[in-house]
C-alpha cells in the first residue's frame, strides 16, 4: 500500500531531476526561445516543484476509479487536474502566497502554480514546463510506474530513470513550431524502456481483469453515494463540498453498508467475473466478436469496460529524439525503435457478469467461439494454432 502523498513527493523529486538536467543540457534553447537567464531558471524550478507536489490534490476518492463521475459543463468533462488547479487557486491560495519563503524569495501567485496544472495561458512562456507535469515524458508517469511496480510486487514498470534524466532535452523549435521535451539520441533506448514499462504496467496491472472489476464496484458504489450521482463542480460554490469526499468518508459509508450492490460486493470481496475479454489489440473482426458475445450474453453482462476509455490508456507514443551529432536533426522515437513503430493503442474490451452467472456465461462464450471456429472453417481458414 502507498499513498498519493508519497507519490506526490516522488513526482516533485523527479521533476526536479528532469528540470535540472534540461537546464544543464539545453541552456541555449531555454535562453534563445524562452528568454530564460540564470535567476529566472532558479525561480521557476521552485514553481515546477510546487506544481509537481500539488498535481494530484484534486483527486476524487480512489483516484482514477471514480474519475468517470466528474461532471460535464459546456461539453467539457472535468479531469482531476481541473480540481487540483481549482484547489490551488482557492483553498491553497493563502498557503502559497503568504508562505515566508515565497514572500521573501519568489513572490509566486497561486495562479502561477494552477496555470501549470490546468494549462492556463497565464503560465506565459513557463507553459513549456507543463510537459514535465502532464505529458508523454512527465514526472508523474516516471514516478508512478516505478512506485506502483514496487508496491505491486512486479517488475513490469521498471525502466532506466537515471538514463532518461541524463538524456532528456529541450528540443529546439523547427519550422516555426514550438520547442518541446524530447530525448537525445543516446537515450532513445531509455525512452523506449519508459514506453514499454507503461505498456506492460497497463496490460499486467492497471487493466488487469480483477483490478478493473473493482473499479466498476468503486464507481458503482460512489454513484449510489453521491448526490446527483456525480461529484460537485470545481467552482467557488461547490468546491468545498467536493473536498468533503475523501477516501475516508467513502470507506466509512461503505462500512455502514451503504453503496448498494456495489458497496456490498466491495465489502464482501465478491466482485464481478470476467466472461469475455477481447485481445489487447483488437481489430475489426475481434470487435465484431465482442458484439456477438454481448448479444448472446444479453442481460448477463452487467459491466463492460474498454481500455480505450481508461485513464491509463497507452495511446500511440511519439517522443522527439534529437541527434547527438547535429542538434538540428530531430526524428521520432518510432524512427529509431521498431518496437515503438509497431505499437498500437490497446483497445481491449472486457465483459463482466455476476459471480453466480459465471458458469452459464462460460457456456455461452464457448458456444460463440465454437460458432466462430465453424464460420472460419467454412471459409477455408484453419482454426487454432498450428
Amino acid at each position, binding site marked *: 500500500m502507498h499513498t498519493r502523498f508519497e507519490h506526490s513527493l516522488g513526482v516533485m523529486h523527479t521533476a526536479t531531476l528532469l528540470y535540472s538536467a534540461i537546464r544543464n543540457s539545453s541552456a541555449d534553447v531555454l535562453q534563445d*526561445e*524562452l*528568454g530564460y537567464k540564470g535567476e529566472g531558471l532558479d525561480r521557476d524550478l521552485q514553481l515546477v516543484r510546487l506544481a509537481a507536489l500539488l498535481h494530484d490534490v484534486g483527486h476524487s476518492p480512489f483516484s482514477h476509479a471514480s474519475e468517470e463521475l466528474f461532471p460535464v459543463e*459546456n*461539453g*467539457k*468533462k472535468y*479531469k482531476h*487536474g481541473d480540481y487540483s488547479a481549482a484547489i490551488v487557486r482557492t483553498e491553497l491560495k493563502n498557503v502559497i502566497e503568504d508562505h515566508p519563503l515565497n514572500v521573501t524569495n519568489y513572490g509566486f501567485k497561486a495562479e502561477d502554480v494552477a496555470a501549470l496544472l*490546468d*494549462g*492556463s*495561458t497565464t*503560465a*506565459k*512562456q513557463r*507553459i*513549456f514546463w*507543463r*510537459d514535465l507535469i*502532464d*505529458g*508523454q515524458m512527465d514526472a508523474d508517469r516516471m514516478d508512478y510506474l516505478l512506485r506502483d511496480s514496487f508496491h505491486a510486487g512486479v517488475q513490469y514498470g521498471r525502466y532506466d530513470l537515471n538514463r532518461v534524466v541524463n538524456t532528456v532535452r529541450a528540443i529546439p*523549435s*523547427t*519550422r*516555426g*513550431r*514550438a*520547442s*518541446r521535451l524530447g530525448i537525445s539520441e543516446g537515450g532513445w533506448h531509455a525512452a523506449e524502456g519508459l514506453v514499454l514499462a507503461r505498456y506492460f504496467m497497463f496490460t499486467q496491472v492497471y487493466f488487469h481483469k480483477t483490478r478493473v472489476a473493482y473499479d466498476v464496484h468503486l464507481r458503482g458504489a460512489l454513484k449510489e453515494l453521491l448526490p446527483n450521482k456525480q461529484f460537485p463542480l470545481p467552482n467557488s460554490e461547490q468546491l468545498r463540498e467536493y473536498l468533503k469526499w475523501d477516501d475516508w468518508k467513502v470507506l466509512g459509508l461503505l462500512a455502514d453498508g451503504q453503496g448498494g450492490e456495489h458497496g456490498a460486493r466491495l465489502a464482501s470481496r465478491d466482485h464481478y467475473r470476467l466472461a469475455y475479454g477481447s485481445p489487447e*489489440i483488437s*481489430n*475489426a473482426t475481434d*470487435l465484431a466478436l465482442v458484439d456477438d458475445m454481448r448479444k448472446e450474453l444479453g442481460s448477463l453482462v452487467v459491466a463492460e469496460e474498454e481500455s*480505450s476509455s481508461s485513464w491509463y*490508456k497507452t*495511446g*500511440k507514443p*511519439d517522443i522527439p529524439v534529437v541527434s547527438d551529432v547535429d542538434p*538540428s*536533426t*530531430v*526524428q*521520432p522515437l*518510432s*524512427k529509431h525503435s521498431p518496437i515503438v513503430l509497431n505499437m*498500437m*493503442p490497446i*483497445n481491449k474490451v472486457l465483459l463482466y457478469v455476476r459471480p453466480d452467472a459465471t458458469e452459464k456465461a462460460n457456456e455461452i462464450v464457448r458456444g460463440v467461439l465454437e460458432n466462430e471456429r465453424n464460420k472460419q472453417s467454412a471459409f477455408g481458414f484453419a482454426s487454432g494454432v498450428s
Partner: protein
Amino acid sequence: MNETNKARLALLPALAERVPAGHIGRTALMKYMYFLQTIRGLPLGYNFSMYSYGPFDSDVLTDLGSAEMLNIVDVSPVEFAGGYGYRITPGPKADAAKRSAVQFLSDHGKDLDWLISVFGKFNSAELELASTIVYVDREFAKTNHHASISEITSRVNEVKPRFTSEQVHGFVEDLRRQGVLVSTDRIMSKAV
C-alpha cells in the same frame, strides 16, 4: 464503441479527404479537432488544454492510433530537413467508418467546409499560433472579459515569445475578421 467515438473516428478520413492535398499531418489533425469543438461546437468530448505547442488532448492521438489499426486511415512518417511529420490519408475502411457516422457527418458537413476554408492552407506553425489565439480568446470569454486585440496579442506573445508582436497581431486581426474570436466584440454572457 459509442456514437461519439464513431464520430471521432469518422472525422479523421473525412478531414483528410477535404483538404486539397488529400492528406493531413498530426498537428493539423489536433488543431482541426480543437477548432471544430471549440469554434463550431461539435460534440467531440475532447478535453484540450494548453501546452507550448498549442491546445492538445492526447485522446486525439489515441483515436488516430485506433483509426490506423482499424484501417480507417493510413499513417506514414514523413521526414524533412531537421524534423519529421506524419501523412494521414483515408484507409481501406474509411468509407465504412464514415457510414457508421453518416448522420453526424451530414449534420456537420458545413462545419468541415468552413474549417478547411479558414484553416486549410495554414502550416503547422500557423496552426499552433492560431489555435493558441483562439484558446486565449476563450479564456478571456470564460471570465466575461471583453478583450482588446492588443490584450490577446500580448497574452499570446507571452506564451509564444518566438513570434513578434506584429506577427501575432496580424493573426489576431485576421481571425477576428473571420468571426472566430468571441471575446473581442460580442456580448460576453453569450460567449461559449
